């Protein structure tokens, strides 16, 4: 046989690129937004006078580092100008792809640092960077787990809006189990099991009964609230000594490493679940991108029918990914009780973290590491609201608490560019004829 029959076969496509009207609209809105933020920052630069103090260690650290004095107006203004420059560069549309990435990173870093400088300069108290970063990890830990639960399910094509419900159920289960057994291992195991059970409901209803993924996700969240709330009132609240007796996990210092100045107290003096989270991120990345199972999970999330025709069991592959995601979401749930603060309280202890984790999944483009970085960013913003509370800033802390949500809206509305979900995310798989 031969393909050399003198016939013109189109060579692999390398068509010329052009900016579509949609892309143009997006470029304009993105660059305008960056420019506006830069302008606001520039205005903020002139609301402060004097210098700000950024402390690199807090009073309890063994190695005391000097605090940094920064000139308020100057620093903020430089950051603002950098942001403005990035915005204008983006606006021209002349940047190559890498140039856009650089401009985006510059703008992001400048806004972040400029805002921190403004915070420090606006208050007489120092801004303690170590505790800010330490707190960032504390807030990000459950998000890490949530991201993994979301990434695993969605890579397999199952939309997971039920992370919140998984968190809540496993937070409750962990607390109850620990109260009865006084064992962290048992508590974590029970939490993972609860996560798997809720993930099982998600898998069962979406894959077996073809219920809309988002609807069943919301229903699972409502169910988790009803179930934990009712059992708490009916059982736990009537005998707190038995059912609500939790001594939470404490931070564990990694001997030696925690002595490293600055980094040590941030990275190596964390709660056990934080370490487990870091390990889990690497594990999930490996599973998804380096194993046979991962290739199959991605294939059923993209084109289940194609996977079916090569003999892959689509439903069981999807189920395995959703259930494994449940394990991680369960561990994340445990963090809200035994992992950090103690016994389960009937006052919405997970506070919407499951939804934030889902936003991190999307902004992280369904990639475990990028998702984790986004989670870290959300953790940073939440920590910022806490760190700045005692600093008496000119803006109310309620508004700083809004930042993660605003950032999410801005991000999903196109600042990070259109993101592409797994092609069959949310689709039902029915064998066709």
């Amino acid at each position, binding site marked *: 046989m031969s393909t050399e029959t003198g016939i013109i076969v189109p060579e692999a496509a390398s068509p010329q690129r052009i900016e579509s009207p949609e892309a143009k609209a997006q470029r304009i809105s993105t660059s305008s937004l960056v420019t506006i933020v830069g302008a606001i920052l520039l205005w903020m630069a002139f609301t402060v006078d004097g210098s700000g103090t950024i402390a690199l260690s807090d009073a309890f650290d063994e190695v005391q580092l000097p605090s940094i004095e920064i000139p308020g107006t100057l620093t903020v203004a430089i950051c603002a100008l950098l942001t403005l420059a990035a915005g204008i560069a983006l606006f021209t549309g002349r940047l190559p792809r890498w140039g856009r990435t650089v401009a985006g990173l510059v703008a992001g870093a400048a806004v972040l640092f400029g805002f921190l400088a403004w915070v420090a300069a606006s208050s007489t108290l120092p801004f303690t960077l170590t505790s800010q970063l330490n707190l960032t990890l504390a807030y990000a830990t459950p998000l890490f787990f949530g991201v993994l639960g979301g990434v695993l399910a969605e890579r397999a094509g199952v939309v997971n809006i039920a992370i919140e419900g998984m968190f809540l159920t496993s937070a409750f289960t962990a607390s109850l189990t620990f109260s009865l057994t006084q064992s962290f291992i048992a508590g974590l195991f029970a939490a993972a099991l609860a996560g798997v059970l809720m993930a099982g409901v998600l898998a069962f209803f979406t894959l077996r009964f073809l219920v809309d993924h988002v609807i069943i996700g919301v229903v699972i969240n409502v169910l988790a609230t009803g179930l934990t709330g009712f059992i708490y009132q009916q059982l736990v609240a009537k005998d707190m000594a038995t059912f609500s007796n939790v001594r939470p996990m404490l931070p564990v210092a990694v001997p030696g490493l925690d002595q490293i100045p600055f980094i040590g107290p941030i990275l190596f003096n964390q709660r056990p679940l934080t370490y487990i989270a870091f390990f889990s991120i690497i594990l999930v990345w490996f599973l998804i991108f380096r194993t046979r199972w991962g*290739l199959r999970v991605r294939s059923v999330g993209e084109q289940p029918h194609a996977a079916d025709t090569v003999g892959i069991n689509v439903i069981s592959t999807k189920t395995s990914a959703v259930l494994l995601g449940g394990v991680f979401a369960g561990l994340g749930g445990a963090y809200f009780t035994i992992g950090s603060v103690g016994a389960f309280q009937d006052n919405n202890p997970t506070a919407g973290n499951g939804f934030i984790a889902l936003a991190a999944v999307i902004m992280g483009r369904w990639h475990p590491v990028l998702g984790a970085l986004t989670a870290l960013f959300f953790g940073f913003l939440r920590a910022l609201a806490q760190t700045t509370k005692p600093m008496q800033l000119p803006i109310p802390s309620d508004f700083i608490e809004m930042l993660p949500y605003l950032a999410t809206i801005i991000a999903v509305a196109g600042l990070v560019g259109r993101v592409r979900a797994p092609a069959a995310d949310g689709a039902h798989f029915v064998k066709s004829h």
Partner: protein
Amino acid sequence: MSITEVGQQPTLSLRGITKRFGPLTANDDITVDIVPGRIHCLLGENGAGKSTLMNILFGLLEADEGEIRLGETSLKLTNPKQAMAAGIGMVHQHFMLIPVFTVAENMVLGHEPTRAGMLDLQSARRKVRELSARYKLDVDPDALVEDLPVGIQQRVEILKALANDATYLIFDEPTAVLTPQEIDELMLVMQSLRDEGRAIVFITHKLREVRAVADDITVIRRGKVVGQAEPGTSEGELATMMVGRSVSLKVGKTAADPGSERLVIDHLTVASESGAVAVDDLSLTVRGGEIVCIAGVQGNGQTELAEALLGTMTPVSGTVNLDGADITNARPARSIKAGLGYVPEDRHRDGFIGEFSIAENLVLDNLDGFTKFGSLQLKAIAENAIARIEEFDIRATSHTQSVNSLSGGNQQKVVLARELSRPLALLLASQPTRGVDVGAIEFLHKRIVGERDRGTAVLIISTELEEVESLADRIAVMYRGRIVGIVPPDTSRDVLGLMMAGVPHEDALATMKEATHE
């Protein structure tokens, strides 16, 4: 080659296969023998049940009755793994490839090599190169499938089927996305695979292709085998067997009497969603009373051109005028008001709301005409539906029936009936008869010609050369977003084929002349 001697392999036979989907019997007691060393054509109309049968053979579906035998042994095929183990491979009509995976990843999916628990993509790449060299089907193992043109994607699909050395190869409607020359090439590939001693099952509804390669022909109609035919059987006879009555393969139409220019497309450029140039500085004029057909291989910008004319995509530059009115940046509502009738290429996606009733679908783009004092006139909508169902011979039990419950041909009639119930300046129809049975094709073509004779400008976008030849007054060949040339309808297929691959008209003519002189 693993298959050393022709005739050594046993015959694969399907015996009395019956498959039902709810009340629908897709396959009714079908018996077919697939013999190594022969090309067996399964000929039948859209919806005749050919693909269902092959999906059963490939283990994707389970038959309700009947058995599959390999020589003397009975096979139980409940998933594709078992089919592949039995030496069956399939080239699917809709490529079963993961667009975001590389060629190598696609090739090994389902039986991935691993090393120490990790995916071994190195050996996957090696395997692609081996296969590609052995069958002289050139592909780059590291290319992303979504970046490849459809012709190359099909190579990947064929190599995938050959990867586990299949003896019995099923080709399900493989020619739909190819140029005539690529089709010839594919025929050669099939023949050489046959000569190696493999059995080829070739599913198609194109008579010309059957006559070109078939050793055995089985004709299927409405889920039943209606007979076998000899390879020499004429196209007319085959068509009669396939449809169940004699059919005219040509549309009866008089010569066009073109009037004034109605649609004027001037230097139009449209970007695809990914930012590639889809329509490239294209100019074209369509007069009232003529049918211009845009021929070309799928994916050369036809979709974007149609969407830009309608207004669901916005052009980057250039203008579109309809009867003197500038509709370049018009949203669909305004284009429709300006007299555009639009039949989309994918009717399930764009043509109708499947859950809505026939009556609602028939007024979907003209709701204002059925609204009085802000309230819809349900009675008028029903009366309109009854009249249209009668006029367009839509086979339905009632106008309240949902469009999803109609056959493909009747769904397309609903779409065309809706568009033709308004006075039009331009009828723009993409793939107007795709997936439609022969009876409906005749009817739809007749109505399109009728619309032309009323003085409407008609622009048809089609990848089916049969359709282009029978409808067109002028053929515009499109390649990579440009019109390669505009030629009369009696232009030979070979010339059209070369033009569809981007060769300008004169060069194509010259090439063909040389070829005939040799």
